[in-house]
């Protein structure tokens, strides 16, 4: 396939950068810190701290879940903003955008490939948090069947499956943000600006989501369902939030993807 070479090249570009690995390492450090802190303090008082933190000492699998809860509001959006904000602006900043375009990678194809790279990073970031969480949990506390919110207990294998689903939910949650970052990235040749703007939007959207006066707006905020992966810990799984989230994120991807296409394909590449 002629298009796949650039796709592979894009993944290599994202994952051969030291910056990417530094960010993934930082994300992986979150569950490690959680686990070590719980280990050293013999558990927090129940009802304090992030959801499920009190379950960690009893079952190491909860390290992964707590890790995802802790990363979703800030750390994950920050790293995704860096990657997504860098997509086009970074190429423009290096000057490689013009060489890609005259190679020629058509602007539409380039956008798809760049977005694909960012989307895969989202998945990798979520998986790193989950995987490191499971491993450190296994090392420090041991793992076992997970007690769901509904009070039912599911076997270890299914528990791991649920954690995988949660990681997928988290990754999907970030795809809308990645599309926004892609669009912002087409507006500027300064990658840092695009990264910062994207990160600020992810925080601003969460703040708007906290204001009850704006509840008409809430269903349209891309951060609205970010914490909804708790619904995967019910029995039976409440797929509604998964579906609503996926639909919402797909809407963001389409809208901002189209905006990014409009912008990039009409833009004079002068960098």
């Amino acid at each position, binding site marked *: 396939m002629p298009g796949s070479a*650039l796709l592979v090249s894009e993944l290599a570009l994202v994952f051969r950068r030291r910056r990417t690995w530094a960010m993934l390492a930082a994300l992986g450090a979150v569950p490690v810190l959680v686990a070590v802190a719980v280990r050293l303090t013999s558990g927090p008082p129940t009802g304090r701290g992030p959801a499920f933190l009190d379950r960690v000492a009893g079952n190491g699998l909860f390290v992964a879940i707590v890790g995802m809860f802790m990363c979703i509001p800030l750390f994950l959006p920050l790293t995704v903003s860096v990657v997504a904000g860098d997509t086009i602006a970074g190429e423009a900043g290096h000057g490689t955008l013009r060489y890609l375009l005259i190679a020629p990678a058509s602007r539409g194809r380039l956008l798809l490939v760049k977005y694909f790279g960012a989307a895969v990073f989202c998945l990798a970031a979520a998986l790193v948090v989950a995987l490191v969480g499971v491993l450190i949990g296994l090392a420090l506390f041991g793992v076992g069947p997970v007690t769901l919110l509904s009070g039912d207990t599911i076997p270890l294998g299914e528990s791991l499956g649920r954690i995988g689903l949660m990681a997928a939910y988290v990754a999907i949650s970030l795809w809308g943000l990645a599309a926004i970052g892609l669009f912002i990235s087409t507006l500027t040749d300064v990658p840092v600006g695009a990264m910062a703007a994207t990160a600020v939007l992810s925080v601003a959207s969460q703040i708007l989501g906290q204001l009850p006066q704006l509840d008409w707006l809430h269903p349209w905020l891309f951060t609205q369902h970010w914490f909804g992966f708790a619904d995967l810990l019910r029995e039976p799984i409440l797929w509604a939030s998964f579906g609503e989230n996926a639909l919402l994120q797909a809407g963001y991807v389409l809208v901002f993807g189209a905006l990014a296409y409009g912008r990039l394909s009409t833009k004079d590449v002068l960098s």
Partner: protein
Amino acid sequence: MAPGDTGLAIETSQLSKSFGTRHAVNNLDLAVPHGSVFGFLGPNGSGKTTTIRMLLGLATPTSGSISVLGRPMPAAGQDVLPHVGALVEGPAFYPFLSGRSNLLRLDAANPRSAAADRRRRVDRALDTVGLGQAARLAVHAYSLGMKQRLGIANALATDHELLVLDEPTNGLDPQGTREVRHLIASLAGAGTTVFISSHLLSEIEQMCTHAAVMSNGNRVAQGTLAELRSGGNGTVVIHTPDADAARTVLGGLGLLPGGEAAQGGDTAVVPHGETGEEGGTGVVQVPWPDDEPAPESIVAALVAAGVRVRGFALERPSLEDRFVELTGEGFDVAR
């Protein structure tokens, strides 16, 4: 890519580009013949790079049309660009990737380049520009000249019908410049059309068969180098002690228009410095606008009139004089 009916590799018509109120390129008509080495000459800021961006579909013209390899740009970019290799406004690479990885990525971006021999072609291109040793070094460790070579290697990784090279010898040492010149000559010998922009006159003079001259967004001249040179007035220079007699004879040949005789600039008896004092020899210079009459008949007429011709020369203006005349600006001859 079948060449267009015009037989031109690049053709633009009334091409204009404005950025706000600034007119970067104004009604530009370019005609770059197939197989030519075409120099695109002009001072910095005269619109060369903007034109190249439009040729390659990176920027959209404000008005006018472009045809590259017989197809309209930017509309047919995806069909045209695989046949065009380019270096635009200096090389640009991912500093954290090796030179080789950079070239592999850019080659992968071309949907028509064959994946099977990608590595072989890239390695060959790297060897061609003398970067075989440094190919696996990260680009941030490269010198400006090495990056320039890498940029040229990128343009060479696939066989192209047209090469567009923007300032290809920028940052190269004299040895590198010579190599690039040889490279271009060999490519041209193999039938590739080469479009080179430069602000360096000497470069164009040494490499090109054709040239166009830009000044402030306007094309002020275009043609073969010979045509460009001849576009200026030649001068007949005669060294003789009999300056007055010589002028009389030249006037008889129609080389001394009455109106211009009064102007000191075009025809003058220049007391030839030291030589004049020693031998009493004067220098008579007169314009020779239409290359007529033939030099031998001028000399014959002078001799027949008893003028002691001690020196006779036909001076054509150098391209540099010509371009200064056209653009009203000097060139950085050495940079």
